[in-house]
């Protein structure tokens, strides 16, 4: 699973900054058929969690209505420099995570 995460170059203490994440994932809806007419099992990334220095700051539950190769942008604040950890899991139980160091400036 390939993931790309982007945060701004400059993060100010206590000021909201945006986190963008894109994950290569088919987000299979469970409504498509394969070439022999069988239903392809649903498999979507159903949960995405953001923790900052271990503290949960954001959580999203995703459904099959999220486009393939899901892209999300959301906002968080950082009281001090630390590590942003993004983790996710799909219906097949495949989990992934990405750690992004954040340097806070005043």
């Amino acid at each position, binding site marked *: 699973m390939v993931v*790309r995460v982007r945060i701004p170059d400059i993060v100010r203490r206590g000021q909201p900054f945006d986190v963008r994440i894109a994950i290569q994932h*088919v987000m299979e809806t469970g409504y498509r058929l394969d070439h022999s007419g069988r239903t392809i099992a649903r498999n979507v990334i159903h949960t995405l969690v953001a923790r900052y220095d271990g503290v949960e700051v954001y959580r999203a539950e995703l459904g099959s209505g999220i486009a393939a*190769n899901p892209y999300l942008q959301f906002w968080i604040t950082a009281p001090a420099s630390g590590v942003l950890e993004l983790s996710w899991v799909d219906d097949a139980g495949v989990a992934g995570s990405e750690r992004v160091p954040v340097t806070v400036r005043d």
Partner: protein
Amino acid sequence: MRARPVACWLLAAVVAIAGCTVVDAGGDNGGDAGGTLATAAQARPRPLQQGSAFAPASLRALQADEFENPGMLWVARGAKLWQQAEGPDARSCASCHGDARSMRGAATRYPQVDRASGRLLNLDGRIMQCRSERQKAEPLAWESEPLLALGAYVAFQSQGLPLRPSIDGVARPFFERGRDRYQQRVGQMNLSCSQCHDSNWGRQLGPETISQGHGTGYPVYRLEWQGAGSLQRRLRSCLSGVRAEMFPYGAQEHLELELYLAWRAEGLALEAPGVRR
């Protein structure tokens, strides 16, 4: 995802297009309106416009955003695969080629004739050849995800450079067959590539604008595919659209058409990974 209408816009428009020798004679796009084999000088649309020029503004913006362009996920995977050791000698692409920046310009010269074998290879074919013959690794299948990723990564190195295919010498017969096939009416709709992409580019077909048919963005991320795909997949889409039999991946017909298309788009900037509807 959505319910499919039984009829499609193309079917609705086919009568108008199929009759273009009359309707569009002396048309406004300088195309080959007569339906006859054009001379080389006439056969390029004027002015030449990038593949992306015909995509909606929202998708052009998506393509231009280095982060949000979903095709960049394939480029990112390709970057990993470039370093990955394969085969008995644990060789990666990087073992021979070093940094992928050494590939700058390479993608602009495909398809090309392989000197040793005399075969016409597109970029994917070259990567497959490298993989089998140099790395001696498990072959990559046409249109497989790793091949699309490596192809996207190598093509991305040439982003912004003009296409510079060679159609001379040993390439000539391949080019000529590709050109003839481009003009050949096919399928139940009895349409050639040229009838849409020379004679009717710039016109609306349902919600879409007919493009000049340049493969400058491939591999592209297509919303319709919900993923990345090669130019051969796009050609298969077109063939299925006109209700013609699709060529298998890697078929000679595809490669020759690709060479003709590359010549037709010569000078346009490579823009992989493109984003299309």
